[in-house]
């Protein structure tokens, strides 16, 4: 059965070999391969359930260490499902979005690396050997780099790609150090449970993995690559990166924490705090942007923050021996992994359609697309409601679990508590409110009202191959939203794999009643239907006239006076100025008839643009000073030799 999954990996990387033409044939074949691969993979997953033992494949490998070990356990499965689903829809979407005939230069490269990205992610998830894992990990990182920098003639794309490459490399180096330490501590590269290792080693490995995987996942100070790379990548690549690749970081962290003995409470606290900061700052940055894809990218950071809050809670639960916290925290965060991959890919696909229609990424120049793109708009509403974690869609289900877990840390009844952790519910609430603000901003500015600039006449709903993937994602959101319990048993067994719970009687379904979510959501939908129906009955006989929007007595409104996205977010940007550090250009307006003035507000990424890049620039400016040492004068070169000789002799003599 695992062979099936391996076959998938092969298939998904293979497409590029199947075409060499400029026609769309190659791309179609690639998409067919992706579908095929995904079907086989899903079949493999399904089959793996019927095996009594966890399916493992272990092959000897001719490297100095390590074996080719892959295992499909339930945690892997949970992450494999998005890997097999999202990229496939992305490739179908790409058929129209990134037509080979329109992108002669980079179309094939993109398709190839796209497939490689999908395949390597699957390998990451099943690898059970550190070396294999690292190899898969790096292939994934590099494939993502090439996929994201498809338009490498655009300097912005190159710059974003470069930042990404550096970030991912730092992450990889941390992971390399971590696995080296792992080898040192456990004596093997096999990723098997290492409960016996010392607390110090475990703590160091944990911190290294938090940094290493944090770079990939985009935990807040380490997120620097994320907005740029997502904004500049082709939309279906952004979707896969955001919806699936970021989760690989989460996966790594979950996998490593599953293997390590968790005894200290600070692990959970660190992750919890990191999650809270990531979430709040991520969504605050999202609101302050004007580029639709940057907003979505920052919102991905926010969602990673939510997932981290859940994971932190679970870690805390492990250190305090509280099965409920673990179940709710990890269960919620795993469910959110699924949910986020569904609604974020939906939104990125949608953003691609919007950009296709309006030829810009700046939402302040859009507006009124609802009339031209009704389907996209409807699907966007689904995605937006889901991502704001509002009932009745899926985002709510996972956040609900995490909230419940956080409330449990209060120590309800006589149970022991860790009330400080419960405070994390407050950032979560802020995240929720800010998310609503953010997505209302995008939704309102892009689809509603009227066009702010020259209306784009040829804007229209994209063709079926782009709509269908979105619709599929939306269906997923609705399904999980209404029936979260279908995932419950998977989550439950995943949690139990993550940590062996003291009482096997505890399970997710006994801790919380997911059924209530279904009931309430259905009740809500019925209620809306009733009210809508009643309203329809009511107005059937009435006069419904159309008029212009009331202009509040302002005689000649033009479309440009509509509230823009920037204005919409401005109060919030000011409120969060302590994180965002906006650059505001605000000319003083004096006199009765002031001249034309421009107000401008830019929110650069605080970490990247105010810390990292200046640091690099300073280094780049100052390091060349060292070059005076290499001035081309031979006698100086000889002098260096003499000097080092003397230094070494002296050091050798005095024994430094």
């Amino acid at each position, binding site marked *: 059965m695992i062979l099936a999954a391996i076959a998938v990996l092969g298939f998904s990387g293979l497409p590029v070999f199947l075409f060499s033409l400029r026609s769309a044939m190659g791309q179609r074949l690639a998409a067919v391969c992706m579908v095929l691969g995904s079907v086989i993979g899903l079949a493999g997953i399904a089959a793996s359930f019927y095996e009594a033992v966890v399916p493992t494949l272990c092959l000897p490998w001719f490297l100095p260490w390590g074996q080719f070990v892959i295992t499909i356990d339930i945690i892997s499965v949970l992450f494999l499902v998005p890997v097999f689903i999202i990229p496939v829809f992305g490739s179908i979407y790409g058929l129209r979005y990134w037509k080979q005939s329109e992108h002669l230069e980079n179309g094939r490269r993109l398709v190839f690396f796209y497939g490689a990205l999908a395949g390597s992610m699957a390998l990451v998830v099943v690898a059970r050997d550190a070396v294999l894992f690292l190899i898969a990990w790096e292939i994934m990182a590099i494939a993502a780099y090439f996929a994201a920098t498809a338009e490498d003639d655009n300097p912005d794309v190159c710059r974003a790609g470069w930042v990404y490459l550096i970030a991912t490399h730092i992450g990889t180096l941390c992971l390399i150090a971590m696995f080296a330490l792992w080898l040192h501590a456990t004596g093997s590269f096999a990723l098997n449970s290492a409960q016996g290792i010392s607390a110090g080693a475990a703590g160091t490995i944990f911190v290294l993995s938090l940094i290493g995987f944090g770079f990939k996942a985009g935990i807040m100070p380490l997120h620097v690559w994320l907005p740029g790379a997502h904004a500049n990548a082709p939309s279906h690549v952004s979707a896969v990166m955001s919806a699936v690749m970021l989760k690989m970081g989460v996966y790594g962290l979950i996998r490593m924490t599953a293997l390590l003995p968790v005894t200290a409470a600070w692990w959970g606290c660190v992750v919890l705090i990191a999650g809270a900061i990531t979430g709040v700052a991520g969504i605050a940055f999202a609101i302050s942007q004007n580029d639709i894809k940057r907003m979505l990218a920052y919102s991905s950071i926010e969602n990673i923050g939510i997932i981290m809050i859940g994971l932190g809670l679970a870690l805390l639960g492990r250190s305090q021996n509280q099965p409920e916290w673990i179940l709710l925290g990890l269960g919620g965060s795993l469910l959110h992994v699924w949910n986020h991959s569904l609604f974020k890919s939906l939104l990125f696909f949608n953003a691609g359609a919007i950009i296709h229609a309006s030829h810009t990424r700046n939402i302040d120049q859009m507006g009124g697309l609802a009339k031209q793109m009704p389907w996209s708009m409807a699907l966007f509403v689904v995605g937006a409601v889901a991502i704001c974690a509002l009932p009745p869609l899926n985002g*709510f289900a996972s956040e609900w679990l995490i909230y419940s877990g956080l409330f449990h840390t209060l120590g309800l009844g006589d149970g022991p508590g860790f009330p400080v952790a419960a405070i994390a519910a407050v950032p979560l609430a802020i995240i929720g409110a800010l998310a609503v603000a953010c997505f209302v901003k995008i939704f309102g500015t892009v689809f509603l009202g009227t066009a702010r600039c020259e209306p784009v006449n040829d804007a229209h709903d994209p063709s079926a191959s782009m709509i269908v993937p979105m619709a599929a994602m939306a269906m997923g959101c609705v399904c999980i939203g209404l029936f979260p319990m279908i995932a419950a048993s998977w989550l439950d067994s995943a949690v139990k794999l993550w940590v062996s719970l003291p009482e096997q009687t505890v399970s997710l379904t006994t801790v919380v009643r997911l059924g209530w979510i279904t009931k309430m959501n259905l009740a809500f939908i019925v209620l809306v239907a009733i009210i809508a129906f009643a309203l329809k009955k009511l*107005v059937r006989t009435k006069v419904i006239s159309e*008029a212009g929007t009331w202009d509040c007595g302002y005689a000649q409104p033009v479309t440009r006076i509509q509230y823009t996205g920037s204005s919409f977010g401005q109060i919030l940007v000011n409120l969060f100025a302590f994180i965002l550090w906006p650059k505001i250009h605000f000319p003083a307006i004096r006199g009765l008839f002031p001249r034309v003035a421009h107000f401008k507000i830019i929110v650069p990424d605080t970490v990247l643009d105010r810390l990292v890049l200046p640091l690099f620039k300073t280094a780049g400016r100052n390091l060349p000073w060292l070059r005076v040492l290499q001035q081309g004068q031979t006698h100086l070169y000889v002098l260096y030799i003499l000097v080092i000789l003397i230094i070494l002799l002296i050091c050798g003599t005095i024994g430094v």
Partner: protein
Amino acid sequence: MTDTIIHIFLLLTLPPLLLGVINKTKALFAGRKGPPVLQLYYDIIKLMRKGMVLSRTTTWVFIAGPVVTLAAVVLAGMLIPIGQFDAPIAFAGDLIFFAYLFGLARFFTTAAALDTGSSFEGMGAAREVTFACLSEPALFFALLVLAKISGSLKLTTMLHSSTSAFSVAMAAPLVLVSIGLFIVLLTETCRIPVDDPNTHLELTMIHEVMVLDHSGPLFGIILYSAAMKLFVLGTVLLHIITPFQMNRMWLNWPLFIVEILGLAIVIGVVESVMARLRMRHIPYLLVSALLFCGFSFILLMRYYK
């Protein structure tokens, strides 16, 4: 069963009365006679009979706004206990559902406002979502406090036990929480000092400006759901500030009606004696609500330690 029916009945019928009482109180304070207490019922019925004017720029979102809001508020109303009676629907974790229903309503209300393409309505929507970012955390702090005191995640249990567990030790946290929640209530229902429902200057409004373009039945729904929101949040607050109960169970119904009307009068008094804050000062008020609730949580933790 009877209780549930009474609960639904009160939820559906009582809210407009509250606004009538508030307005009457304000009129009395101003030395006017004021509109009849039942004025809002008349308004809603009148609006329901009228036709609609829709803006050319709008889409279905414009209609969805009021509809979703009403549904959300009704459902939220089903989650809270009224007086000493249990809520019709109660399950562990319903408090989060309760809070997020308002988020859902906000999403659609603001989206509907933006749908008109009017800059004034956009302004209102921006303010609405902004202030919610501060009131939601306050609400959650309050919920944390209540959950800790009651040891439960059901709104029904939580609210009831805050009534029963009213000990001296709990007094300080509960007082702080109730102040915080009162501010949240004023914000969510758009009352003075956060928002002035009676103003007619679009630039300074929050809620009213968002619904400028709604007319006829849609506007009726909006008025109705706004009143119901006040009712729902007021009920939550009442559980904390009025820990009274009658010997006879059925007497608790009239007691509750008296209490909620009393709350309406208090709101009316507040509205009469205060001026609306400047827009840029509202965040300070909300942050103070957040701090009240937060301090209350910290106090409570000290107590349990």
